[in-house]
């Protein structure tokens, strides 16, 4: 999907039709909805679409850009440039995601996506040196010569994580996974969890954001049972991370959690007390729609990219749109081996007494 650059005339036409609330306009393409849902729900869409809506909407994109460094991946620069171009085009049309969570931005050249797309606030995850000092590097035999065990893990790349935001990011923290909380090739990157509080205009409390990339499954080049143990450890780290930093504010946790495997997904859900945004959208949110390459499967369980969330007593988060975007080809290749996973959240101040967080 290409986003052509807007000319003045097109912008004039657009403004004549929509503005001034163009910043919260939804994507214009509606794709098929789950079987249990009506194909289109015009009675619901306008609340989100209309320019007169006063309810703030937060657009959050999670995107694994497959930015492996050379020589592991070559010829990726045009892909990074195109991803950045798409984000710039969307900014020009006023539909840019307010927050972008990137994974696998290992290649230093991916920096251009962060720095040339108009995002004022950039939270870059730990590089390869900012690794955890805990854990015993998992791949060394414990009983061999001590000096050959290299308990200080050898990270080849950094975390590959970014949070880009139009709104201020506060209280930023990160936690690199311990050296034994990984399996296979994933251990060569300094995978981590990023946390920040987002000060969204018009919302009375900050929204907690988390971006992470969990241990891969088959791609790790290690038996599934070994990778699963690492996944469980990382999930536990996320839980402890939440316990220490999350103080009841609304929260969005998104990233590449590698939960396509049903056993992993079940373990994650059991450990992490958050709602699956796709489940909420398809099951409980009457005015939530799917767009751009999004189907019930690709937003629910047939994906490693996920959004999880929970509202607070004062602010509710309601998904109103989910899309799997960045699906265009560059030559014969996709932009990444993942699609973007973008969710538009309606952020509503709750009236009256505090009610249970949704």
């Amino acid at each position: 999907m290409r986003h052509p650059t807007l000319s003045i005339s097109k912008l004039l036409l657009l403004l004549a039709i929509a503005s001034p609330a163009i910043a919260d306009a939804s994507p214009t393409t509606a794709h098929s909805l789950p079987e249990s849902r009506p194909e289109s729900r015009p009675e619901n869409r306008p609340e989100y679409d209309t320019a007169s809506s006063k309810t703030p909407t937060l657009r959050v994109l999670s995107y694994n850009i497959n930015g492996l460094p050379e020589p592991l991946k070559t010829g990726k620069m045009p892909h990074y440039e195109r991803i950045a171009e798409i984000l710039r085009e969307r900014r020009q049309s006023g539909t840019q995601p307010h927050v972008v969570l990137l994974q696998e931005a290992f290649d230093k050249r991916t920096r251009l996506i962060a720095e040339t797309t108009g995002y004022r606030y950039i939270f870059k995850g730990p590089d390869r040196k900012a690794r955890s000092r805990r854990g015993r590097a998992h791949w060394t035999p414990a009983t061999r010569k001590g000096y050959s065990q290299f308990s200080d893990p050898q990270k080849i790349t950094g975390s590959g994580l970014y949070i880009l935001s139009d709104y201020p990011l506060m209280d930023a923290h990160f936690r690199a996974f311990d050296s034994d909380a990984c399996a296979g090739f994933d251990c060569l990157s300094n995978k981590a969890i990023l946390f920040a509080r987002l000060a969204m205009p018009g919302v009375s409390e900050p929204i907690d954001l988390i971006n992470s990339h969990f241990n891969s499954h088959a791609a790790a080049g290690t038996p599934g049972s070994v990778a699963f143990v690492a996944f469980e450890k990382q999930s536990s780290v996320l839980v402890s991370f939440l316990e220490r930093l999350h103080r009841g504010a609304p929260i969005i946790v998104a990233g590449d959690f590698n939960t396509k495997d049903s056993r992993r997904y079940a373990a994650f859900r059991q450990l992490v007390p958050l709602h699956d945004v796709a489940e909420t959208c398809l099951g409980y949110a009457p005015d939530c729609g799917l767009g751009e390459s999004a189907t019930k499967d690709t937003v629910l369980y047939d994906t490693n990219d996920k959004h999880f969330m929970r509202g607070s007593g004062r602010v509710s988060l309601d998904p109103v749109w989910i899309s799997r975007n960045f699906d265009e080809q560059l030559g014969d290749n996709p932009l990444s081996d993942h699609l973007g996973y973008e969710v538009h959240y309606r952020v509503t101040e709750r009236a009256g007494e505090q009610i249970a967080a949704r």
Partner: protein
Amino acid sequence: MRLTSLLILLAFHSHYALAQNNADEAVEPIYVPAAELSDTSDNEDWSGQFGAGLALFPQYVGADIHDVRPVFEFRASYKDWLFIENTQLSLSLVRSRFLRAGPSVRFDQGRRDYGRLSAPGALGNVDGGWEVGGFAATSLYKLFLSVEAYAGIGGGMKGASAEFELGYTYVPHPDWRITPVFGMVWGSATHQNQFFATETYRPESGIYETYAELLAEWRLSDRWLVKANTRYGGIVGDAGNSPLVSGQVGSGKQIRSFLGLVWLF
């Protein structure tokens, strides 16, 4: 509102909007400072292990008889800087991402004559003694490679020797690690003469042993594991041609095995 007024208004509005967007693109991004959220404690300064089990090994280097005895193993390290391994102590003075190196000292127990070395021309006991040298080790992912070199400084140990080792660890299951290791040992003429010379035979310097080893660890818990390893070595070169090895009381085939329980701390 007249059409021209509307167009002017829209043109102004669009110009303003474009200017805002361009300004957004041109804005210098702010890299948000972040703090690390680490657990309250780092790894312990000291780590190590005690092991106890049964070992099978040749009575002496080149012997054709192997004994089974209870043995104890001890390893400890302090901040990845000091390494103690039974009778060996090493200091890692070079500690980069891919290299560790430093001086090392060890006590070699020499060779004990169990009577079989009273064979014609054999030189009997070799007293134990101290050796000093150094080590260098590198590791990449599950591959590790190390070399140690020593020279005798007292007691019965004379000459120089070096050991080269290459290994790769497989993790087939969360509780299992399987590590094949390949290695070789080089000895100076003086060193080899201690163990392989007779009154009429003097080996020259060279590689005198090559070996393949399989190490398995079965993790019982965070602190406990079962260790099993078997090393099959061959005495080669001049040493292999020594009457002490190729004669009736010797063998070029050397097996060393261990099976035991290890407690990690």
